[in-house]
């Protein structure tokens, strides 16, 4: 609970820290949706159904339901895969040539493929940790108590939101897991974990057709057996 409260405190801070120089320009757009994907233009707006091409502004949110998936494409080319039952807050700013992005994920799983150049910043904030990455791809899993990152390529630095002295750095082929005390443990990726990353990149969907008196209803949903 303490961490949830902390996150609630952090979100406005993150928002304010990256929103300097914000404009009406979108930070990202929705590239693909599967099943139940909604979005908010800002935290004060109402949830609305997302469509392919929906622009996402600084402070916007994306939410995925059960068996759902959203691909979010940032304007500098980074791609996030928001997997089922996840909520993603999106913040971004641009000052000169420097593009800053921060995403806050309270729970769920997020696949990332970040295109970073020069002084660009791309951060992920979870209830328990903040991760800074550079030109990299992998998977983040989090809930209110723990954060795990599988990194396929590149480099990632992560630190505890409550105690920055508790931190870790991993390179491609490694995973980092946050322990209950906030410290981090680094280990190499197993074959199974590499397979999970690979599978996460494929947006496998299935379709159910329900025949009703008023016609057929098609439901397309995202399938995945990994957690």
């Amino acid at each position, binding site marked *: 609970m303490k961490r949830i409260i902390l996150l609630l405190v952090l979100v406005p801070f993150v928002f304010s820290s990256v929103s300097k120089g914000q404009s009406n320009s*979108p930070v990202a757009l929705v590239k693909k949706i599967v099943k139940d994907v909604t979005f908010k233009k800002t935290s004060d707006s109402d949830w609305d159904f997302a469509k392919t091409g929906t622009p996402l502004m600084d402070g916007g949110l994306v939410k995925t339901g059960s068996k759902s998936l959203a691909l979010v494409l940032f304007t500098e080319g980074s791609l996030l895969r928001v997997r089922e039952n996840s909520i993603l807050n999106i913040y971004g700013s641009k000052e000169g040539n420097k593009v800053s992005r921060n995403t806050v994920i309270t729970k769920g799983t997020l696949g990332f493929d970040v295109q970073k150049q020069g002084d660009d910043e791309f951060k992920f904030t979870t209830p328990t940790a903040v991760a800074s990455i550079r030109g990299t791809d992998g998977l983040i899993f989090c809930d209110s108590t723990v954060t795990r990152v599988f990194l396929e390529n590149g480099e990632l630095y992560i630190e505890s939101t409550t105690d920055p002295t508790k931190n870790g750095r991993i390179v491609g082929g490694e995973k980092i897991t946050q322990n209950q005390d906030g410290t981090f443990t680094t280990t190499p990726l197993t074959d199974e974990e590499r397979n999970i990353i690979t599978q996460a990149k494929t947006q496998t969907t299935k379709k159910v057709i329900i025949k009703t008196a008023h016609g057929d209803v098609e439901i397309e949903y995202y399938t995945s057996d990994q957690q």
Partner: protein
Amino acid sequence: MKKTLYIFTLLVFASSGIFAQISNYISGVKIGDAKEKNPITVIADLISAENISEISLAYKPFGESEFLKLEMMIAGNAASATIPLDKVQPPYIEYYLIINLKSGEPQTYPLGISEGVSPLQISVSGVSQKDKEIIVLSPNEGEALSTDEQLISISFVRAPESIDIAKTKFFLNGKDVSDIAVVAGDIIVLSGENIPTDFAGSARDLRIEIYSKDGSLYHTLKRTFQVVSPEVAAAIESQWKYNGSLRGESRSENLNSVGTWYNNATANFNANGSGIQLSAYGYLTSEEKAEKQPYNRYLATLDAGDWLSLKAGDSYPRFPNLIMEGKRLRGFSGALNLGFINVQAAYGETVRDVEGKIIQTYSASNVPLGSDIIAIDKVKYGAPFAKANLGTYNRKVLAVRPSFGSGENFQLGFSYLHAQDEVNSIEFGARPQENVVVGSDFMLAFDDQNIMFTSQAAVSLLNKDISNGSLTDAQIDSIFTADNSYDVNASDVKKYRDYIDKFITVNQYLGPWNPQEFASLGAEAALSLNYLNNNVRASYIYRGNDFQSFGQSFIRTDVRGINIVDRIRMLDNKLFFSFGYEDLQDNLQNTKIATTKFKTISASVSIFPRADFPNITVGYNRFTNSNGLPVSHPQNGKYAIDDETNRILVQLSYDFIAGIKHSSSVSFTTSSREDNGAANSDAQFNNFSLNLNSFWEKNLMSVFGLVYSSSEISGTPFDYFTISAGGRYRMLEDKLTLTATLSPSFGDFERQALEFVADYNVLKNLNLAFQTRIYRIPGKTTNSIIGLITRYNI
């Protein structure tokens, strides 16, 4: 007027084109698009493949010390090789082909490289900074989008202020769809059902034009993608994607009144899904004969992301170039990249065993001396010795390279190569060999590889005759007797033999004998700095005269020195200034009468304007070779080397509209060699070529070319002039394509060449092609090649 002037005065080597020089074995060379850090595939069309045993591509990036060699894959009447992307850098790459004929005679394309004829050049254009400024968010190149999820979007988040985002134009299959684009801040989006679907087929060509605020065209981007039904899109995403093709060819060649039929079949299969890529390739030809090196090719590969790669069959493993590169290996190769720890390995056959033949037998009393005289089974053949056409031993190669570090900022690798001729693989052979190479390579980079240090070193051991194995104890005892003058204990020799014998056969043929002089050491180190639009690379190489790796047939030995290259990029990579200086010398182990110094100065200016103006490259090279011996020296004058070659190269290429669209290229090369050495081989060489491709309408394209070559080597002039004219016409709703080219040559080289190809798509995935080439040499012969090719795509 400007364009008219260009038509008649400008040149070029088109970025993609066909280049023809005279050759009895190669009718032309096709080069793919040459852009920085993109691999270039070179395809040579062969005239009489049955006379060719092997073809290699020799290429040299600007300012490099030596030509690198790649064995080309011969398939039917074409040979191909791909220059790896890390070697493709502006302003140009020089290349020529080495043709080894079955008669044993080597030849080059163009002819006479070793006599002073200039190599050919491929202009390499730089990557535009604008490609990084304007980001195409969607679609990805080649992506399949469903009709209800079409998304075209570009981002200007990194674009300069001078861009007028609202003026951006979008064209789908040539149709202007800009009116449905929605501008939202730094991005433009075209999505969903707004995007027209009334195009034939599923393929889409997207062209995006970006304009500056002053209205001028700033940049053009292109993408190709497919639009498919949601069901197909889902299938593409969720299932394995696969494709393949089968190709069969039957061809008759009539050369010098000798007719030969060739038949070959090629199968290709590719599949990918779940992050795994599988591919299989097979090429079977009637040219495959047990008494020759293999012509058939087989390859199966498996790639799992960047971390695992496995190959079985005929592959060309790439290790550090002192160890193994450009060599065909039939067997297994692969790499496991775990991040910090990586392993690369290859094992297989590089040379097939081909049995020799007895020419004449001899008794012990009358056997002559000769390198082709061998001992044979007296009981079996009635005599103990024979003169033979020597066969070729089966040669097996094992190479292993563990490395540490991902290679992004740091990598340390250790390589081991062992190659051995199988002594019992043939009966009539001589001097089977064995080779061991041990090496290390190191790479350290900072600041996104803007500062990079690389180095490698390797030591080789070569045994030139392992037919009798290692020295026996008795042999060692007989040599290192107590009263011998070697001051070496026989037991120590046996101890060392036993240790070294684990790696290589130990006998009197094992070398080098002077390791303390670094005779078999190969080493190089290079420092690259990439700042302020300068890419400077300084390197030092050392190759002892006895360095040899059986994984690398072509490496230059007995040379050391420095090489400095600077590539200066200006105006968003539109303008390149390049400078190179090289100072090498040989005779490292004092094995020659005098030391020769080789100095090269290179400079070039290239303009790639990416606008309505020609691409231009002007280059200059000066080569001086001298060993300081005066020609007049009574004993050593015949070894005197003192020559200087100056070469100027001009290349222009230009696409322009003059009534219709034309693509033109012009090149001019002139070189002059003043040889004051003993060979006195002065040489003059001038070559001018022009190509003009004209696109008259959708179905008709014409080709026109001129080549004028004038050379004089050691006082022997050789001048010729070739005109090429032809065209391509598509008919029957693009199902039938007819191509014809006529190329007569005049002067000291007289030949009339006619090529005709009819290509018919019987079904969407079934294609038939009829090819005929006729070469008439006035007063001599008329040669022809007629072939039928069937292609089926899965």
